[in-house]
């Protein structure tokens, strides 16, 4: 497998312009001859499908939800970054680029990140033009807030529902194209495999989740915008339906899986309350603007938060990172929370949590201001925990939230399978080993509105109109395989539901491949996961048939893939014998417990190639070359 990133030559700031000029264009009259499949309807998928259709290409868009408006981008709360410098606080494209590269602990590709920073401003313009109701100042201009990992205020927001508003903006553009017949939408339809003919992606095989019908769809290019695989941990802030199947099936067809062990654990989530827990809910990182994080100084301090005097509290982020304080990046904040909990100073019934306290902010600004800023988040917290955060501090703890890893893509967002493009969280390209807050929305929309529409055109011209239709024997063969897989899942007739296997896998992953990892643990996981997988294929119980709406069957298929994804993650985490960003190998830390990066041996993207079931995948390396920023030790002190 050859990894050619196809980064254009020339100065960093000119690369994208130069590349756009060099890419081939499709004559307006010829655009209707080309077709694209877009899988997923979140920010990247909806924006990509709408933008491709606006150009005149024929687009088919698929999502597992009952409507494209429900993709999980909708749950992002805090905001979206851009370097507009509306606040006159010294922001610039270069600063946004630098912060993102540094935040990612120097494990992302410079050219991709710079392009992201460049188009970020266009995204804000585009969304405002669509009627996205961003927060505004009294003078009528856009408001900004600050966010973790940055010292400028560059985050645009719509109350605590920024993801919802941006997604509904993209959904409105998509709806317009569906209404005009330029996009054919397939809701409640799940991609179950990719079809590759003569080394080129030609289409997909899907299952209609209402009737169970398995069918094929062919196109000149396939775009995966299927999100991340963070539900491998079972308890996560992802929607219950989020899964890694589309990406993983493509990996099995030859797409390299890059940096699978780079998974983000978000510091501010509502802690687990019991065994029945089905998911974790995130509290926006923006809360860290006004909330102060602390635990008692002494172990096993069972007093109520309000009874613990100031001098017996440890505001550990402010103590350890005085210049960033409570706004330290996500990986650092998460790890610090784990440290104090492991030290026996955690709070709440389970002892697995830390306080996020608004008492000072309420005293300083008044309850009204806090309510205006975070009202819906406070309400959400109260609903879930039954506690009022205006009077008692919130309890928070880290949870799986985002995957920086994903399918490997080149500068054009094309995977190692020609004709298969990957956008948004599903690819690996922009966030390195750690993503900064308010950057996921930025990347999803950048890929969808401003990258894929150009690079797909270039692919169409170079590859020509595909003459492969769904009558091709390869489509029939893959359809048959998918049918058989469904049959197999239904015929095991064991005792355990898919959910119990998913929970068991989540426990292994969280324990050995979560916030802290070490060689012995990862090796243990690499024994436990295959054993669990074997049990799955012998003792699974799925009721009903394929030819109906069958939620257990859907889940079983996804869990089967998670049981393999987890293994690839562990291989990657084991091979990467350094600590960087969210990947913290306990053997590699400074005396103060900070991540110890090893640029000499690990300044590369790991890209894993499938070698067959039960076989260790092959590791390929894309060296990361930094021509414009100096590799430095990330310091937020």
């Amino acid at each position, binding site marked *: 497998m050859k990894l050619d990133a196809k980064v254009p030559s020339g100065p960093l700031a000119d690369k994208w312009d130069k590349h756009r000029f060099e890419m081939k264009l499709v004559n307006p009259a010829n655009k209707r001859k080309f077709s694209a499949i877009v899988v997923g309807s979140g920010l990247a998928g909806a924006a990509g499908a709408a*933008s491709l259709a606006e150009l005149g290409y024929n687009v088919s868009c698929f999502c597992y939800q*009952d409507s494209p408006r429900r993709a999980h981008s909708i749950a992002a709360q805090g905001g979206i970054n851009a370097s507009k410098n509306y606040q006159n606080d010294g922001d610039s494209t270069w600063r946004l680029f630098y912060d993102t590269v540094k935040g990612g602990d120097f494990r992302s590709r410079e050219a991709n990140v710079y392009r992201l920073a460049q188009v970020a401003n266009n995204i804000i313009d585009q969304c*405002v033009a669509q*009627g996205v109701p961003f927060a505004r100042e*009294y003078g*009528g201009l856009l408001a900004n807030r600050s966010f973790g990992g940055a010292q400028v205020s560059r985050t645009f927001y719509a109350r605590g529902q920024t993801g919802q508003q941006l997604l509904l903006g993209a959904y409105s553009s998509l709806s317009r194209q569906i209404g005009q017949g330029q996009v054919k939408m397939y809701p409640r339809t799940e991609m179950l495999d990719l079809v590759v003919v003569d080394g080129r992606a030609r289409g997909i095989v899907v299952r209609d989740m209402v009737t169970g019908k398995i069918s094929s769809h062919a196109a000149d290019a396939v775009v995966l915008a299927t999100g991340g695989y963070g539900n491998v941990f079972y308890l996560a802030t992802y929607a219950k339906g989020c899964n890694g199947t589309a990406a993983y099936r493509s990996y099995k067809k030859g797409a390299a899986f890059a940096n699978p062990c780079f998974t983000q654990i978000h510091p501010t989530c509502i802690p687990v309350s019991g065994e029945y827990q089905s998911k974790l809910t995130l509290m926006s990182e923006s809360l860290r603007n006004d909330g102060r994080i602390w635990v008692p100084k002494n172990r096993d301090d069972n007093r109520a938060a309000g009874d613990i005097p100031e001098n017996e509290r440890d505001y550990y982020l402010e103590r350890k990172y005085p210049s960033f304080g409570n706004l330290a990046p996500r990986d650092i904040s998460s790890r610090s929370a784990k440290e104090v909990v492991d030290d026996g100073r955690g709070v709440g019934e389970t002892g697995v949590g830390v306080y996020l306290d608004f008492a000072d902010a309420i005293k300083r600004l008044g309850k009204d201001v806090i309510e205006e800023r975070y009202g819906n988040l406070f309400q959400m917290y109260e609903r879930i925990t039954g506690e009022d955060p205006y009077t008692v501090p919130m309890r928070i703890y880290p949870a799986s939230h985002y995957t920086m890893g994903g399918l490997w893509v080149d500068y054009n967002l094309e995977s190692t399978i020609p004709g298969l493009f990957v956008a948004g969280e599903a690819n690996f390209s922009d966030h390195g080993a750690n993503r900064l807050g308010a950057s996921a929305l930025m990347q999803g929309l950048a890929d969808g509105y401003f990258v894929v529409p150009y690079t797909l055109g270039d692919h169409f011209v170079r590859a020509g109109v595909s003459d492969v239709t769904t009558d091709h024997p390869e489509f029939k063969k893959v359809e048959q395989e998918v049918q058989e897989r469904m049959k197999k899942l239904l015929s095991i007739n064991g005792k355990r539901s898919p959910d119990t296997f998913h929970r068991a896998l989540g426990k292994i992953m969280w324990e050995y491949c979560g916030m802290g990892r070490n060689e012995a643990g990862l090796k243990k996981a690499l024994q436990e996961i295959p054993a669990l997988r074997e049990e799955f294929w012998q003792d699974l119980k799925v009721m009903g048939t394929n030819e109906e709406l069958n939620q257990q069957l859907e889940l079983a298929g996804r869990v089967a893939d998670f049981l393999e994804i987890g293994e690839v993650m562990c291989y990657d985490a084991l091979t990467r014998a350094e600590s960087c960003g969210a990947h913290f190998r306990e053997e590699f830390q400074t005396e103060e417990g900070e991540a110890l990066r090893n640029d000499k041996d690990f300044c590369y993207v790991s890209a894993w190639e499938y070698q067959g079931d039960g076989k260790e995948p092959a590791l390929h390396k894309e060296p990361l070359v930094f021509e414009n920023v100096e590799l430095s030790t990330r310091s937020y002190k």
Partner: protein
Amino acid sequence: MNLTLYVWRQKNADDKGRMEKYEARDINHHMSFLEMLDVVNEGLIQQGTEPIAFDHDCREGICGTCSLMINGRAHGPEMATTVCQLHMRHFKDGDTIYIEPWRARAFPVLKDLVVDRSAFDRIMQAGGFVSINAGGAPDANALPIAKKDADTAMDAAACIGCGACVASCKNASAMLFVAAKVSQFASLPQGHAERKQRVEKMVAQMDREGFGNCTNYYECEAACPKEISVKFIAMMNREYLMATVTR
């Protein structure tokens, strides 16, 4: 706590459907309503009974997927709450709970508690957008918008499209849903160019889908998990009138 559930079971769109009785044992009061159903389903699977199908996804009250009538109320007894955010601490040991799907002609049942809400998408496709292609938008601050107007637009835009308004309305009217989108764009300068066509097209599609009319009971507002105000229905009526008389 222990509960008795009566749940609507319907094999598919053609099945007549019926209420079935189930016992929910050892329910923890910290559980969400959907986690309670997860526990019941796990028990059903162990007994060899097909689990109850229900729609859900984000489980944090924003995607709008979950959709249950609980004791005759859309999303259950709590105000401003989706089912996924409803917790069992609001129920008592020994309670009997009736769980049904959304009921509306425009929302046919697909299975058990799962309904088809694609009618909402078709209303959006008819006109729920500002016609702007990617690229070429002016600078975001080139058009100042009064905070008051932006806030009104955001109040309306908070709709999650769950359909509780329709399910709770005697007439199965979708007026609150449509009004929220019409009002968002009517409050903003970006929406002005297409203001008249938009309201006419969206209302026409709403009628074609078989939703009823508004007769001012305001059940929709009471059931709405995002507290969308019925004042937007008045706003839409004004928009509609203006569009039709100045056509």
